[in-house]
C-alpha cells in the first residue's frame, strides 16, 4: 500500500524523517509521527545524527511499517485535538479506540502477530498495549491446541512431564482469587 508519494510533507516546513523497511522501501514521515516510534527517537537522540539520515528498520516489513505509520499519524492528530476540554478529550479517546478496533478487526492472525513484533521492535507503547489486548481476545478461552497453532509452538513436554502437570492441576493445588 504505502510508498513515497503517499506522504505529503507538511507545508509548515516541518522536518520529515525517512524510514526504511526490510525490503528497502522508504517511507517519509513527519517528525512528530516518527518520534512515536521510540526506537527511531533513540536513533536521533544521539549527538551528531542528522535528520537526513535514513533510519534502517530491518526487522520490520513494509506492510507492517505502513500500518504502524498510519496508526501513529492518526494518533498524533487525535492527541493534538484533545486539550483541556473534557468533552474533546472524551471524543478523541473514543475515536482512538475506534481506530484501534478497526485496525485490529481487519487483521488476520498472521497480520496481528507481525504487527505486534513490529510494535515491539519499534517500541511504541500505546500500540503494543492494544495489540496485546487484541491477541488476548483472539486466544481467550481457546483450547491448548488452538493456542499452539496460533503461536506456532511445539509441545515440548515429555509425556511424563505432561502427565505430572495435569495431575498437579487436578489434585495438588487451587488458585485463589486475590483479595
Amino acid at each position: 500500500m504505502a510508498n513515497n508519494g503517499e506522504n505529503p510533507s507538511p507545508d509548515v516546513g516541518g522536518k520529515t524523517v525517512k524510514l526504511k523497511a526490510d525490503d528497502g522501501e522508504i517511507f517519509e514521515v513527519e517528525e512528530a509521527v516518527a518520534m512515536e516510534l521510540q526506537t527511531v527517537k533513540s536513533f536521533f537522540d544521539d549527538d551528531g545524527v542528522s535528520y537526513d539520515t535514513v533510519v534502517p528498520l530491518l526487522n520490520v516489513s513494509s506492510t507492517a511499517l505502513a500500518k504502524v505509520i498510519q496508526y501513529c499519524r492518526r494518533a498524533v492528530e487525535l492527541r493534538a485535538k484533545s486539550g483541556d476540554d473534557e468533552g474533546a478529550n472524551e471524543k478523541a479517546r473514543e475515536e482512538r479506540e475506534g481506530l484501534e478496533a478497526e485496525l485490529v478487526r481487519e487483521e488476520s492472525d498472521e497480520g496481528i502477530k507481525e504487527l505486534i513484533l513490529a510494535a515491539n521492535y519499534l517500541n511504541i507503547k500505546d500500540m503494543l498495549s492494544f495489540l496485546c489486548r487484541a491477541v488476548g481476545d483472539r486466544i481467550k478461552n481457546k483450547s491448548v491446541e488452538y493456542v499452539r497453532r496460533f503461536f506456532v509452538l511445539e509441545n515440548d513436554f515429555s509425556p511424563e512431564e505432561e502427565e505430572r502437570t495435569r495431575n498437579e492441576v487436578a489434585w495438588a493445588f487451587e488458585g485463589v482469587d486475590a483479595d
Partner: protein
Amino acid sequence: MSFSVEKPGSPSPPPSVKKRTPRWSELWLKNSKKPLKNHVVFTMQLQPPTPTPTPTTKKFSQTPTPNLPKSDPITLLPDHLLLNILSKLPDSQRNPNSLVCKRWLNLQGRLVRSLRLFDWQFLHSGRLLFRFPNLTHVDLVSGCFFSPRNSGILLSHRVVSVHIGSGFSKSWKVCEDSLLPVEVVDRGLEVLASGCPNLRKLAVIGASELGLLSVADECLTLQELELQNCNDDVLRGIAACTNLQVLRLVGNVDGFYSSVVSDIGLTILAQGCKRLVKLELCGCEGSFDGIKAIGQCCLMLEELTIRDHRMDGGWLAGLSYCENLKTLRFQSCREIDPSPGPDEFLGCCPALERFHLQKCQLRDKKSVRAMFMVCGAVRELVFQDCWGLDNDMFSLAGTCRRVEFLSLEGCSLLTTEGLASVILSWKELQSLRVVSCKNIKDSEISPSLSTLFSVFKELKWRPNTKSLLPSSLVGTGMGKKGSKFFKRM
C-alpha cells in the same frame, strides 16, 4: 544494505542488558566494537528463553538481521509482552495455558500470586516453588491433612474443611487422626520460606514454633497469618514476625482439634506483635490478664474478633485497655462473661465504633449488662441470630448512648415495644435495619415510633421475612412448606 563490520576479537559474554535501550546510531554509523556488543545484546533480547542455541556471537553476516527461523517469528516475543497478554486472559484459562509448552508453563506460573495447597508432596518436593516463583498468598491448611484423593465426604466447619475417608474415627478426632506430623509441617514451612521471600499471607495448621521461625526469618514481608491448632508454645515463634498486622489464632474447634491458647500465649503475642491491626481469637482460653496485655502492647489494634471463646470470668474488663479498638465482634459465643466483676473496674473502650454480635447466647443479664457498658461508646450495633435477646435483655443496650445505626436480624424474642423503648431514647439514631424478627409486628408501631422512622436516613423494615428468595426462584414454589412444594408432575 551492507556495511563493513569489524569482527569482534573474542566473543565476550554480553552484559545484562534488560535496562539498556539499543543505540541505533551507534550501531550503524560508528564503526566501533561497542555497537556490535549492543547489537548482539539487542538480538539476544529478542531470543526466547528456551535453550535454542543461535550462533549470533560467533559470526556476523553482512546484514545483521537476527539469525532466526522465518517460519515462527512470534517466538521472538519477549517475556514481558507474553506476560502482558497472558495476564489479560481469564483465570479459567490458566491451567490449559500451562500445558501449551514449557515456556508457557513458566510464564503462566509467574503470574500466579495466591494458592491453596491440597497435596503436601507438591510443596515438599519443591515443585510448588518451581512452578510458582511469585507467590504472596499461600493457604496450606488443606494440605496439612492426610486426605484420600477421591473422597466424596467433605467435613466442613467455619474455619476449616477437610476431605475424609469413609472409615474415619468414631471418637470424632478427625484432625488428630489425619493431621501431618509436626516435623513434616515444619519442614514444609522451611521449604516454602526459602522460595517465597515475598510471602505476605500464610495459613497453616499444626506447625510448631520452629516452622514459624523459619518463615519469620525469610519472609520479612509477612503481614497476615493464620495458625490453626495453635497453642502457647507455637506463639513463641510469633515475635519474630515483626511486620505482622493481621492474625487469626484457632485453638479449639469442637470435633476437629483441641489446643490451648492461654494467657501465656496471649502475652507472648502481645509483646511480640506490636504492629497488630486485626486479631481474631477462635476457641481460645485466657482471661483478663491476657486481654489486658494485648490492649496495652498492641497499640494499633483496630479490630478484634472473639469466636467461641473459653475465657475465664472477668475478661471483659480487659477490653477497655484496647484504646484504639474500633471494631469488636463476638461470634458463636456460648456465654459472654460468667463473672464480669464490679462496674467500676469495667471501663469502656474509648474509640469503639462498631460492635457486632453473631450467633451468641445472650442469656445472662449480668454479663450482657457488663458487655454493653464496656461498649458504651459504640455507634454501630449489629445483632444477628442471637439467642436470648428478649425485651429485658435488649433494654440493657440503652447504656450505649451514641448509637447511630442499629441492625437486628433473626432476633425472634424482641417485640416492637421492647425495640421502641430503647430506640426512642437514642438521640443519635439515624439508620435502622430490622429483618426476620417475627415478634416485631407492623401493627404495633406507635405514632412516636413512626415519627422517628420518618426522620431516619435509612430504614429497612422487614420483620416478617423468613428468608429472602432470590428473584430467580420466585414462582418456582421453592421455600414453601409442605404439600405445596411437591407438585404433581
